[in-house]
Every structure is written in structure tokens, then in C-alpha cells.
């Protein structure tokens, strides 16, 4: 009886240990599954899925996509500057993209922060907030997590990414944009 119990316990521990094995496999599978919802796929001409944009037709008009990190000051400054620039607000529609989904562990802070930027701080009318698209590679993410665990409070999970889309063409795109002066408008 005791032997059987021991064997079952070891089996359970072994099964649990499987959760530790090859975590990158998990990320790859997740990426694969997310591909149908991937923003990069959507921007390509061949894609016909417009699930994100039920509220908005992105094939015509001028858009600025801003992908921002959870608490990076750079992205908040971009939002601030854009909200102050009436010319941009008039000619472009602003779409904010967050790397996290709302109800995940980091997303709770993320959503609080995004609200802060979008509604309280800058009072910017983001036409859409898209969530759940990572702008980081997996090693980048792990490195950031390591830093945070080591006590680094600058848990800047992502750098802001800005994409300008005009009539279904990517006019300008850049990672690590720190301010509105870095964006090249026509």
C-alpha cells in the first residue's frame, strides 16, 4: 500500500516536472496559435481577416499605430506630445497597441497605466486599443524579467513602436521611438 502510494506520488511529481521542460516550446506554440491574430499578418495585403478592425476600416485613411510598453516613460511622453499636437490629431487616427492582454498578471498594471495615459494624462482619443501583441522577442522578454527579479525597478517591458499607415501602405515605422520629434511625417 505504502509502496503504491510512493510510486503514485513520484509519478505525479514527474508529471509536474514536465511543466518545467522546454518552456520555449510553449512560446513557439503560442506564437503559432496567435498567428491568425497577428498584426504583422493583418498588415500584409494577402490577409483578408479584419477581426481587429470591425470598428474601423484601415485600408483607407491615415493611421498612427503606437505600440507601448507597460510603464515606459518614453511611450507616455509620445502620447502626451501627440495629444498636444492638434494637427496630428486632426489628420491621423491613433491606434494604441499593448503587448499584454488585460487580465494577465502584468496586464493589470499595464491596463491601469494605459488608461492613465490615454484617458487621464494625455486625454487622447485612441480610436482603438489593441491588446495581446508582443513587440518583443522571447529572449528580450526573459532578459527584462531577469532584471526585474534582480530588483531593477525600471521594469520597462517594451520600447514604443510607431507605425504610420497611409492608405494601406506602411509609410514609416521605427522601434525605440522616444519622442514625437523622432517621427517623420510627410
Amino acid at each position, binding site marked *: 500500500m505504502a509502496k503504491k502510494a510512493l510510486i503514485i506520488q513520484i509519478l505525479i511529481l514527474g508529471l*509536474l516536472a514536465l511543466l518545467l521542460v522546454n518552456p520555449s516550446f*510553449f512560446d513557439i506554440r503560442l506564437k503559432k496559435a496567435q498567428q491568425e491574430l497577428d498584426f504583422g499578418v493583418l498588415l500584409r495585403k494577402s490577409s483578408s481577416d479584419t*477581426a481587429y478592425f470591425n470598428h474601423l476600416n484601415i485600408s483607407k485613411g491615415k493611421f498612427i499605430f503606437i505600440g507601448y510598453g507597460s510603464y515606459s516613460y518614453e511611450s507616455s511622453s509620445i502620447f502626451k506630445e501627440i495629444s498636444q499636437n492638434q494637427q496630428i490629431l486632426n489628420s491621423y487616427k491613433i491606434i494604441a497597441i499593448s503587448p499584454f492582454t488585460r487580465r494577465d*498578471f502584468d496586464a493589470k498594471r499595464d491596463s491601469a497605466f*494605459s488608461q492613465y495615459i490615454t484617458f487621464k494624462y494625455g486625454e487622447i482619443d485612441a480610436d*482603438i486599443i*489593441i491588446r*495581446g501583441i508582443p513587440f518583443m522577442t522571447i529572449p528580450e522578454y526573459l532578459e527584462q524579467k531577469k532584471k526585474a527579479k534582480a530588483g531593477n525597478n525600471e521594469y520597462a517591458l517594451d520600447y514604443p513602436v510607431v507605425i504610420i499607415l497611409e492608405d494601406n501602405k506602411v509609410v514609416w515605422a521605427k522601434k525605440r521611438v522616444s519622442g514625437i520629434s523622432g517621427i517623420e511625417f510627410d
Partner: protein
Amino acid sequence: MKRILRFELMKIWHPFSFIYWILFSIAFIVFSYDEPSFIKRFMSSNFRYNEEIIINIFYFASYYKYLLTLFIIYITSREFANNTIIRSIYEGFSRKELFVGKLAVLAILTLFVFLLTRIILMVLFLVKGYSFNTISFMLLNYHFVIAELYSCFSLGLFGIMLSSLVKNLYWSIGLFIAWGYFEYLLQMFSFMTPFQEMANYLPLYVMTAIYRTLRFNEFGLLQLFYLFTLQQLFLLVIYNQYNHITWLRKH
């Protein structure tokens, strides 16, 4: 083993169980097809978009484990309260046999509920038009399967432990809900403090939303051993309680 299993299953074979699991399936379908509007209003502080639906479904679907635990609490605490468990000892079952039987029933129920929820989710995802890749990732990858089965089983153990300690149906259900609410509060407050990782060590929270832990915070060795020791603790307490079954006096 066969004898005790037959005996345990006989106890579950009751109209109440059928009604409970049918209601469970209906509620599960309703909640996982689309969230009711009051929950939407309660939960949403921002816009909601289509790509979140699959995550939302998993979020709500993870709470079925509470219902499994409530069922387990119902069957065990009634046994203790009505002294049927001591009667079965008079009828020739040993205390160890009853302990093993209960665990076996829990394992069977876990498998049953797991299959039921997976099948419902599979059909719902197909109806909603998700790609096969997404469905297979969300339902059939071994990380989720192991985590769901293990967390279901552990929550069930928690339920058995509570009911064997308290020996009263209403008190144990009340305590279980109170514990859940206490954890919810702790978890909510922890987000305002530097101790945000504390939420990863709240037993009910971790076990209900284990897929979240797996997706965004990698499953660490420490957490694994923590969960395992928790399970051992539950098992030990249950074993002890079953080894000291006595006739429960009612005042």
C-alpha cells in the same frame, strides 16, 4: 479496491448528481459562449475586442474547478455529518480503504469534468470559427492538460480536507467561499504593493488560473515544490482525519 470503488460510486449515483452536472454543463456553455452582460459591464474598464474572446473564455472556464470542489465538499461532508462513514466501517470497510476510495472517486471525477469541459470548449471554439491550430494549442498542449488535471485534483483535495475537518456541509461550503474571497482580496491588494508575486502562492488563485501562470510567468521550481508540498499537506490531513473517524455526536 473494486469493492470500495463500487461502494463510492453507488453513493454518487443519485438524481442530485445528475441534476448538478447537467446544470453545470448548461452554465458552462452559457458562460463560455459569451459572457453575460452584467459581467461585461463589471469587468470592462476599457474597450473589448475580438481577439480577447479566447482568453476570456479560458478565464471564465477556469472557475469550473470551484464547482467540482463544491460537489466534492457536498458528498464528503454529508457523509461525516450523517455518520454514514462510520456505519460503513461497521459494515467491514477499513479506514484506509475509505481514504483510498475517496481519492479514487476524486480522480475519476477530475477526469470526467476535464473531459466534459474540454469537449464543450472544443465544440464552442469550432462554432466560433477558431482555427484548428488555436484550438489544439489551447486545449491539447501537454502543459495545460497536466496543469488543469493537477489543479483540479488539488482543489478537490482541498475540498475533502475542509469537509473532513469541519464535518458540516454549510460550514465547509461557507469556509471555502470565504477563503476564496479572502484570496481574491489579498490578490487585489497585492497589486498595489511591491509583493505582487505573492499572488502566485495563493492556493486557490494559483489552481484556478494556472494557465495564466503558465502563459506569462514561467512555472518555476519553487512554485512546483510549493504546489506539491501543499498537496502533500492536504493528503496528510485527510489521511489523519480518515484514520480517526468516530461517531459524530449531534447536540
